[in-house]
């Protein structure tokens, strides 16, 4: 079974530039998540989609971050304009809606490491 695919793996940009990250979840996984992991900390949930609808975006800095999941499959996370404090690893994860006894198949990608200089 193919895992959660993310690209790019690394990205370096200057502050005030824009950047976009892409995520392709596991086939059949209706729920998709974006997490931000700052160095030395655990991941923090930014946004959760179920199919193409937003379930939770309470921790997404909406003045500069946006995300979409067109057609309920792939997702894109964008930052515009970037700040130095946005330097982090951005992890995407996906899960099933059913099967609570099996961890919902919750699976993470390998993330994109963003450096803002």
């Amino acid at each position, binding site marked *: 079974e193919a895992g959660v695919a993310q690209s790019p793996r690394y990205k370096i940009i200057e502050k005030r530039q824009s950047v976009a990250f892409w995520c392709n979840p596991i086939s059949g996984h209706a729920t998709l998540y974006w997490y931000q992991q700052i160095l030395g900390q*655990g*991941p923090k949930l930014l946004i959760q989609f179920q199919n193409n609808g937003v379930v939770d975006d309470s921790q997404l800095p909406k003045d500069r971050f946006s995300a979409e999941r067109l057609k309920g499959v792939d997702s894109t996370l964008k930052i515009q304009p970037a700040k130095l404090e946005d330097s982090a690893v951005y992890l995407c994860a996906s899960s099933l809606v059913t099967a609570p006894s099996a*961890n919902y198949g*919750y699976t993470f990608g390998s993330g994109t490491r963003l450096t803002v200089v």
Partner: protein
Amino acid sequence: AQTVTQSQPEMSVQEAETVTLSCTYDTSESNYYLFWYKQPPSRQMILVIRQEAYKQQNATENRFSVNFQKAAKSFSLKISDSQLGDTAMYFCAFMKRGSGGGADGLTFGKGTHLIIQP
């Protein structure tokens, strides 16, 4: 909102020894799950073990076991016969049981860097 606290930033043990990582959490939820994830340098979060809060029996997966104390809101991970490949960041995580179906987002602790010495 829930919080997860891991008070050990780093631990180091010799290969084949047993090590215990600590985790405490705070929540007002009654139905939830707890997890331990391993994150190697590849950055991918790998599930080590999970525990349903309504189950009194502690979860076990081969060399990995947990000590779940619901009243104390404590969830420690024990690794027996530690191996060099166990070297990684370990994160404790909380997830409330979704009411509308599907899995909610995870709340993570800050992690413990575990080093297994040869």
